[in-house]
C-alpha cells in the first residue's frame, strides 16, 4: 500500500499557529500523522530564570494569551508555595472568578472556531458575540480585555465592589440562557451531528494511555479535573462536579466545553455570593526567603497546567522554572484521533483539543555528547525511548 504525504503547515490557512503536520494519506483517509513542533519556541523557561519574580508573572502571562489568567494563577500559586506565603481568602475567590471568566472566554472562542471550521458560520458569529460580553466583564474587573495582569504574588491587583457584582450577575444570567440554546443546537442540529459525531474518536483506554488532559480526556469519559481532584484557590469551598461525556468524539469534546460554560457560570455566581470580605493581597518581598520548590497544578481551559519553580534563598530570581502545558500533553492524543479520519475532518479534530501551540513549544533536548541543542517533537522522543 503506497501512501502520499500531505504536509500541512508550518504556515497554513487551516492552522491558527505555525505548526507542521505530515499526514500520510491513502485516498481520502489519513493513515498516519507526524507532528513537528517547535516553530514558536521562545525560550521562556530560561528567560524566566533570568528575571525577577515580579517580572516572571508578566512573562508567564505571555506563554499563552488566551489562558493568561490560568498561567499567572499557577505561577503565583507555585511561587507562593515556595515562599511560604498564604494569600487572603478574598483574593482566592477573586482569582477563581477571573479564572472562570477566562475559561468562559476561552471556551466560547474555541466553540466558535470549531463552528467556523465545520462551516457553520452563523453559530461562529453568535459564539463570538457572546464572548465579547465576557471580555467586557474581564476589562471591567482587570482593566484589559485579554491581558488581565490580575494575579500577583500574594493576591490579586484589583478589588470588586457591589457595582461589579451586579454587573457580572446580570451578564451571566442572560448568557446562561443563550448557552442553553446553543446546547440545544449542538444536540440536534444535523450539520453539527454530521460533522462532529463519531469523528476523531478517542477511546477511554487510549486517552488514559496517551495521557490526555482537560476537555479532551473528559470527552472520552475520563474523570480528570484538577478542580475536583486537587481543589486550588476557592474550589474547595464551592460546589463543582466534573463534566464528563463518554462518546470520545469531536462532538463530545465540544459538549464538555458547552456544559463547562454553564458550570463555570454557576461557580462564578457561587463565588460572588460567598465572597468573604478582607484584604485582597499581602505584601511579599521580592527575594525568596528560603530555598524551596513550589508546584502548582490547575485546570486551565485546555486542561491540566503545571508550573514548577525552584527558589534559591535570598535570590530574587527563580533557580529553575518549568512549565507543563495542556496542549503538549494532548498532542499524542490528537495524533491518535487523526488516524483513520477524512482529510476534511482534520481541522475540526485539531480544533477540538483547542490546541495552543505557542504554549506547547518549550521542550528542548541537548545532546550531551556533541553539545548540540535542538527541539525535539514528542513522537521522535517516543521513538527514542523505545530504542
Amino acid at each position, binding site marked *: 500500500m503506497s501512501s502520499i504525504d500531505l504536509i500541512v503547515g508550518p504556515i497554513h490557512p487551516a492552522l491558527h499557529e505555525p505548526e507542521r503536520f505530515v499526514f500520510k494519506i491513502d485516498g481520502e483517509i489519513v493513515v498516519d500523522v507526524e507532528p513537528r513542533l517547535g516553530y514558536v519556541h521562545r525560550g521562556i523557561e530560561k528567560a524566566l530564570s533570568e528575571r525577577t519574580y515580579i517580572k516572571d508573572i508578566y512573562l508567564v502571562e505571555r506563554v499563552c494569551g488566551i489562558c493568561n489568567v490560568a498561567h499567572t494563577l499557577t505561577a503565583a500559586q507555585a511561587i507562593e508555595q515556595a515562599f511560604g506565603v498564604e494569600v487572603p481568602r478574598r483574593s482566592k475567590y477573586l482569582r477563581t472568578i477571573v479564572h472562570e471568566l477566562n475559561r468562559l472566554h476561552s471556551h466560547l472562542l474555541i466553540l466558535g472556531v470549531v463552528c467556523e471550521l465545520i462551516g457553520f458560520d452563523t453559530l461562529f458569529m453568535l459564539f463570538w458575540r457572546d464572548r465579547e460580553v465576557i471580555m467586557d466583564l474581564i476589562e471591567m474587573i482587570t482593566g484589559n480585555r485579554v491581558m488581565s495582569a490580575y494575579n500577583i504574588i500574594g493576591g490579586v491587583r484589583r*478589588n470588586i465592589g457591589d457595582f461589579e457584582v451586579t454587573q457580572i450577575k446580570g451578564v451571566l444570567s442572560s448568557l446562561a440562557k443563550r448557552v442553553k440554546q446553543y446546547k440545544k443546537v449542538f444536540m440536534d442540529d444535523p450539520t453539527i451531528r454530521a460533522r462532529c459525531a463519531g469523528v476523531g474518536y478517542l477511546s477511554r483506554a487510549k486517552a488514559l494511555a496517551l495521557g490526555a488532559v482537560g476537555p479532551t480526556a473528559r470527552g472520552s469519559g475520563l474523570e480528570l479535573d484538577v478542580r475536583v481532584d486537587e481543589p486550588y484557590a476557592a474550589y474547595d469551598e464551592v460546589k463543582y462536579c466534573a463534566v464528563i461525556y463518554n462518546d470520545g468524539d469531536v462532538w463530545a469534546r465540544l459538549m464538555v466545553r458547552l456544559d463547562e460554560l454553564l458550570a463555570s457560570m454557576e461557580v462564578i455566581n457561587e463565588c460572588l455570593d460567598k465572597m468573604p*470580605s478582607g*484584604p*485582597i*493581597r*499581602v*505584601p511579599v*518581598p*521580592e*527575594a525568596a526567603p528560603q530555598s524551596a520548590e513550589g508546584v502548582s497544578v490547575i485546570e486551565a481551559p485546555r486542561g491540566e497546567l503545571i508550573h514548577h519553580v525552584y527558589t534559591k534563598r535570598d535570590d530574587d530570581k527563580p533557580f529553575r522554572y518549568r512549565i507543563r502545558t495542556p496542549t503538549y500533553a494532548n498532542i499524542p492524543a490528537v495524533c491518535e484521533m487523526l488516524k483513520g479520519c477524512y482529510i476534511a475532518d482534520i481541522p475540526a479534530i485539531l480544533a477540538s483539543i483547542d490546541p495552543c501551540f505557542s504554549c506547547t513549544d518549550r521542550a528542548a533536548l541537548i545532546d550531551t555528547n556533541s553539545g548540540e541543542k535542538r527541539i525535539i517533537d514528542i513522537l521522535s522522543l517516543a521513538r527514542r525511548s523505545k530504542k
Partner: protein
Amino acid sequence: MEALRKAEENFVVLKAFNDLVLDVVSKDLCTKCGMCVSSCQVHAISMTDEGPKSVGPCRQCEACYYGCPRSPATSEELLKASLSSEKKDDILGSYNKIVSARTVLSEVKSVAQDGGVVTTLLIYALEEGLIDGGIVASKSTIEAWKPVPKVALSINDVLEAAGTKYSNCPSLVALKDALYGYDLSKVCVVGVPCQVTAARNVKVQPKAARKIGDKIAFIIGLFCMESFPHVKLAQFLTSNGIDIAKVSKFDIKEGKFRVYMGDAEVLSVPIRNLKDYANRFCETCRDLTSWYADVSVGAIGSGRDWSTVIVRSDEGAKLFDGAVQNGYLEVKDIESDGIESLRKIAKRKASKN
C-alpha cells in the same frame, strides 16, 4: 537588561534602606512608627520590636528615607508650611482653635481613655463615608496591653481600639494593610506625634512616598509625653507586684502614672519615677501636642472625662465641626488655665529634650 543598566548609570547616589539604618536606626532615633514599612513599594522592610529590618532586596527608591520622621532629611519648614492655620505658636504648634470636647455616645464613654473624642471622630467619619478605614492601635490578643497596628473598617473595630496603650506601637505598618491589602482610598491615621510627623511627611515631602499621602484623608494626633516599651512596662508592673494581664486601664493624670484594676486604682507613682523605663527615642522629641496633625487630642488642660482638642487645619475643622454639628460630640470653651497648663507642660517637653 540593557535598558536597566543604562537606567542605573544615570543615577546619582540614591538613599537606600541601609542609609536609613545608618542615619536613624543605629543612632537610636528610630521611633518604630512603621512608616518605612508602608513606604516601601517592593515590600523589602518589616517591623520588629527592635526596629525595621530588611527582608528583601532594596531597590533604592528613597521613599523610606524621606518619609521617616527622624531622618535628617525631614524639613520642618515644609511641614510647618503645610498647615494653613491662623495662629502660629512655637510650643503648641500652629492652630485654629483649642476647645474641650467629649463624646455623647454611651458605648464610647465606657471604653475611651478621656473624652472619647478620637474614637467618636473615627465613628463619625466612617458613618459619613469620609473615610474607608482608620489606622489605629488595637490590643494584642496574645500579650496583654501590647498595642498592635490595625485597620479599623467598622465601628466595632474602632471601639475595640479605644483606650490608650502606653507602649509604642508601629501603627503606620497598618497603612500597608489598608492601602495595599484592602485597597482603600481614604484612610484616617491616629497616632502619637512621631507617627503624625511621618504621616504629614508623606503628604508634603516631595521625595517621600506621596502616593500614601494622597490616600490619607485625616491625621488625628494624640498628645504624648513619652511611651514605654511593652517589655519594660510589664517589668515595671511586675516589680510593683502587679500582673499586667489583670490591669483594666492605664492613665497619666496630674503628673502621676496610674494603674487601675476594675475600678480601683492599684498604683499611682510620679511619672518621673518611670524615666528609666521610657523609650530612648522619646528623649529627642520636642513635640507634645502633635504639631502636624489635622486635629490633636489629649487630656492635659481639660477636666476629668473631657478632652482637649486642637484643630489645626481645614480638613481638621471639617472633621471636628462636622462631628459636633451632627451631634456626635459636645464642646465647651477650654478654661484659660487649661491652655496655660498645656503650654507649660509642652514647654517643659520642648526644653527638656
